[in-house]
């Protein structure tokens, strides 16, 4: 079954994960900016990260027929540092026009401190100022209820916020109701331990219905499963639910939420492109992709390459030096002085 993973930290994953996701029906994913597991020392780390999210990852995903979108922010884990947050907030607008950027996220709270709340509010202001959609992280474990409540109350009290353009993620049994009751979208994050299992996600679908609920794997650098959404599909079928209901949750709901951004456009059928690429080389995949994705991240790749921004880093040591992309990616982007010459569907060759 085709699906869209609305929360996937692909910078943490291997190309093999992209392959498995493509083979299991993933057509598109969105990657919120997050914490790398350690606090970055300066704004320069965010500059490189934002380029990775807007230049490198869309190209890597495209090789397997997956459309890659992203959200930008300074994440809640680093939000205690107000000085750093201020610097990062200043650079974010430079990236908002990039074709695969859907909005601001994943902002929110971590330990639920006054500084984190101030940084959260600053990001909301930035989103409102630039007309961006918002993707929100809610805290972990014992902090989830308190943090979700504070986030919902803060946004609900702001008359400028359209809750239909906000997704409050990582809901669990004790927080889902307050999110949905206030008109927001929500996400159920399918984690092996610290969030929601596929079976519990099915339970919540049965209790609250499918409206404004999405599911995601998050698949980051910790214990997580890049095929979590297919596991959810399997759990729904095992419970006896029909494919129309399942498709609504894993495909139609993400399209309805993400489609509020004019940048979100689904192109060709997933899987076929990757298969073509593997079988026949880059040209077929590239032309098919470019022809069908007018405003999507395919254009993002071409534009980024064409702008020269990708050419400086993607082609150089970062991409070429990785085992994943090899020189074909470098070739497609880096060569990159002319967007028309870029090969957005180029297939990496593991020489």
């Amino acid at each position, binding site marked *: 079954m085709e699906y869209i993973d609305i929360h996937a930290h692909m910078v943490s994953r291997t190309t093999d994960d992209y392959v498995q996701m493509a083979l299991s029906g993933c057509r598109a994913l969105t990657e919120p900016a997050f914490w790398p597991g350690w606090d970055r020392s300066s704004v320069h780390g965010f500059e490189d990260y934002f380029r990775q999210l807007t230049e490198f990852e869309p190209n890597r995903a495209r090789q397997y027929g997956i459309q890659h979108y992203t959200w930008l922010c300074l994440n809640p*884990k680093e939000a*205690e540092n107000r000085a750093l947050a201020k610097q990062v907030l200043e650079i974010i607008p430079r990236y908002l026009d990039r074709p695969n950027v859907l909005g601001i996220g994943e902002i929110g*709270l*971590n*330990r*639920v*401190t*006054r*500084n*984190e*709340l101030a940084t959260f509010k600053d990001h909301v202001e930035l989103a409102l100022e630039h007309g961006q959609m918002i993707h929100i992280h809610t*805290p*972990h*474990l*014992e*902090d*989830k*209820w*308190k943090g979700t*409540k*504070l986030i919902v109350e803060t946004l609900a009290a702001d008359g400028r916020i359209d809750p239909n353009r906000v997704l409050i993620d990582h809901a*669990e*049994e*004790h927080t889902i109701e307050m999110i949905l009751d206030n008109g927001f979208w929500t996400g159920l994050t399918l984690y092996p331990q610290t969030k929601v299992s596929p*079976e*519990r996600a099915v*339970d919540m*679908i*049965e*209790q*609250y*219905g*499918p409206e404004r609920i999405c599911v995601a794997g998050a698949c980051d650098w910790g214990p997580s499963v890049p095929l979590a959404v297919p596991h959810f599909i399997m759990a729904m079928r*095992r*419970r*006896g*639910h029909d494919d129309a*209901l399942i498709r609504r949750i894993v495909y139609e709901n993400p399209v309805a939420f993400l489609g509020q951004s004019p940048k979100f456009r689904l192109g060709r059928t997933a899987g076929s492109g990757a298969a073509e690429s593997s079988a026949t080389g880059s040209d077929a995949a590239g032309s098919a992709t470019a022809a069908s994705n007018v405003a999507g991240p395919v254009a993002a790749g071409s534009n980024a390459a064409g702008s020269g921004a990708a050419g400086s880093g993607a082609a150089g040591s970062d991409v070429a030096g990785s085992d994943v992309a090899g020189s074909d990616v470098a070739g497609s982007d880096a060569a990159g002085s002319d967007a028309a010459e870029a090969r957005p569907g180029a297939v990496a060759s593991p020489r």
Partner: protein
Amino acid sequence: MTRATVPSPKTGKQLVDEYFIENRTRILEIAAFLDRLDRVGDGQAHGDYRMRAFRQCLEVLVSGGYPRMPRIQMILSDPRAEPLDIRDTQNASGAYDPEKEA
């Protein structure tokens, strides 16, 4: 009991048939975990705030009454409304420690 928005396609018997074994496994894992702590016998685990919450959760499981999940989630949650003045640690621990507040 709250009426399900999407009714379960399976009957109670069918759900037991489908899910009993994996939940039998889970309850055995919990029993083994508690026995493991008892074998150490140093008393440290018994007074740990996480294990105090754990025992409260087990009481909800055996007391019956629907729904159990929100009640257990709240036992494991920080119930306070006010944000912290300053971050104490980067990571959550899985249960709220009321003594840490004092």
